[in-house]
Structures are given as structure tokens and as C-alpha cells.
């Protein structure tokens, strides 16, 4: 089976589960949860930097998804849809616990790839990312780790694309300082 065929088969399988979940089948929804929980939790943890908050956000994400299943269009990716919900939930939870930081000036340019000069330990780079200011970290996580375009990341975060790019510039500068090496 080719990768594309495997992808199609997964989508079909996911579509069937979605259909059952829409009809109120919680077992089908549990299987969707098992499939996506890791990525959703990973995103929530990176955005909140707090295990307890990330757990709450993950649970709220799936509860909100269950409520909104009827409105989900199967043409779009379930993963992206869940990530959008997770970002909204995480931003809302974070807003409650900390004040909103001022957004940087908009920028028209941003790094295309996120590579470091020499290989870095995962733990070290995760710590450096975790230490970034909220806005810069959000943009970096969505764009560099989860592969969303500047426009998609900006839309998910509810900011202008230029602001998102400026946050990515800021993230690169801070990472360079913390890791002591060039980040391209």
C-alpha cells in the first residue's frame, strides 16, 4: 500500500468514526480521541507550559469538539479542526491566568526553515521554546512544529499575518540567544 493509499484509508476510517460519533456513539468518539489526543495535548502543553492546564485544555478541546461535531465539515482535516479548537481553548485559559502581552510591530518577512547550526538535544530546545514569551512561542509552535503557514497560524491565533511573522522573528532572535547558535 502506498503512503497516499494509507492516508486515504485512514481518512475513510476517520470519516466512518466521525459519522458514528455524530450519531451519538461515544465509543467512536473515543477512538478519534485516542488517535488525536497526543497531538492536541502536545500543542496545549507547548502553549500553556503547564501540565495541569494542558490536561484541562485537552479535555475541553474534545468536549467542545463533541458539541460542535454537527458543524464540522468532513472536507477539512479533523486534525486541523481540533488544533484550532485547542488553540482557542489554550488562549482563553491563558488569558485568565496572565495578562496579554503587547504584540510586536508587523513584519513582511519571516524565517522559512527552522534549523540550527549543530544538532541540539530535544530537551534543551524544548526548554528554550518553553522560555519564549507567549506570543512568540505560539507562532513558533504552530508554524515551525505543526507546519501551519503564516496565514493559518495567524488565523488560529486571531492576529494579523504580519504580526505572526514579527513574532516568528522575535522567536528566532531569542532562540539564537538562548541556544548560543544561529537559527535559520
Amino acid at each position, binding site marked *: 500500500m502506498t503512503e497516499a493509499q494509507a492516508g486515504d484509508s485512514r481518512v475513510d476510517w476517520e470519516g466512518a468514526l466521525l459519522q458514528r460519533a455524530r450519531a451519538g456513539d461515544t465509543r467512536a468518539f473515543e477512538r478519534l480521541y485516542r488517535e488525536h489526543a*497526543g497531538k492536541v495535548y*502536545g500543542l496545549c502543553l507547548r502553549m500553556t507550559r503547564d501540565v495541569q492546564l494542558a490536561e484541562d485544555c485537552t479535555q475541553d478541546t474534545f*468536549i467542545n469538539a463533541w458539541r460542535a461535531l454537527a458543524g464540522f465539515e468532513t472536507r477539512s482535516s479533523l486534525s486541523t479542526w481540533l488544533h484550532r479548537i485547542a488553540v482557542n481553548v489554550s488562549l482563553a485559559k491563558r488569558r485568565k491566568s496572565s495578562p496579554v502581552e503587547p504584540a510586536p510591530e508587523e513584519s513582511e518577512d519571516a524565517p522559512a*526553515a527552522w*534549523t540550527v547550526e549543530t*544538532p541540539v538535544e530535544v530537551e534543551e*530546545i524544548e526548554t528554550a521554546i518553553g522560555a519564549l514569551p507567549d506570543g512568540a512561542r505560539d507562532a*513558533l509552535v504552530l508554524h515551525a512544529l505543526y*507546519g501551519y503557514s503564516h496565514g493559518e497560524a495567524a488565523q488560529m491565533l486571531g492576529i494579523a499575518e504580519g504580526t505572526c511573522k514579527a513574532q516568528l522573528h522575535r522567536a528566532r532572535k531569542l532562540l539564537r540567544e538562548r541556544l548560543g547558535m544561529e537559527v535559520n
Partner: protein
Amino acid sequence: MTGREGPDGRTLVKSLGELPQSIEPPRDLWPTIEARLGGIEAPAPAATAAQSIGRRRSARLRWLAAAAMIASVAVGVWIGRSLLPLPGAVPGARSPASAANDTSAVTGAPTALDAAYVADPRYERQRAELLRSLQTRLAALPPASRAKVMASLETIQRAKEDLERALGRDPGNALLQELLVNTYQDEMRVLTDVREASDPGEGI
């Protein structure tokens, strides 16, 4: 993640894209989610949202119609009990003997026979109309439902006959009067339900 292993066994990455997107939660979050889902209505498909609104509206109308019907029965009975004279009796004139035996003569309350035999003409019309189409509508129901409806109507009919006989013996019994009114209401409810259930687009 496509990172490589360092000399001490720790994973190294050269690109942020190599970091794992997925991180497993430290505990299983599903039981809490499942418990919370229990209090939430199951999601309805978007395509049927309009239909469900229609169904809700139809159900509401059905209940309103039933309530109106019941109200008309009650009003009809009340009118009969309060305003209309007993068959064969002269308004305002009662024999001393009947007045002595009938508590309503003292209290001014209507007699049971008033309640039992006088009804609102609208109620009579609606009931007659429902009874006319009953056989056709019953034929449209699944056998199990049809049997249940028939059994209910027979029970109601027997109750009506028993109550009317009892009221013949004890015309002033307020409890029997109330039970009779309730039985009429039950009959109307069953007849209305049969009509709704046999209409296209409706179900039991």
C-alpha cells in the same frame, strides 16, 4: 520525530520540524471526558438540524392541540355542569325530595349527570371526526402498536361505562365526575396520538 541519537543516548535534532508533534498525556484523560459527555446532548447532524427544528415545532403544536382539546372538554363539561339544566327538569325548580337527597341542592354544585351527559359541541365534533378515521389510521400502524391502541381504547371504554353506571347510582360523587372527565381526556389523547402517528413524517 526524525532526530538522531547523541553519544549519551539522548535524541538530537537539527530542525524544529523534527520535534515530536505528539506528546502523550501523563494520564488517561478519556474517563473524565466521557463522564462530561454524559451530560451533553449527542451531536445532531447538520443536515437534519432544520428537520429537528421542524420536529420540535410539530411536537409542540401537537401538544398545544391536545391541550386545547382537553381544555375544550373541560370547558364543555364545566359549562354543562354549571349552566345547563338536567334533562327533563325545569330550571330553578327542584322537588323537595330530590333536593333532600342531592347534596348539590345545598351547595349549588352541579350534579354528576350534568357532567356526564353534556359536552362541548366542538369536542363532540372533534371526537366524531377522530373516530371516523380511526379504522383507517389503525390500519396504517404496525401490528404491535395497533394492538396496544386497541387495548387502550377498550380499557377506556370499559372505564367510561363503569363510571357512568356508578354515577347513575351516586350522581353527586365529585370524585367519580372527575374520573369521568379524566377518562374522556385519556380517550381524546389516544385518538389524537393515533392520528399523529399515522400521519406521514410522524412517528411513535
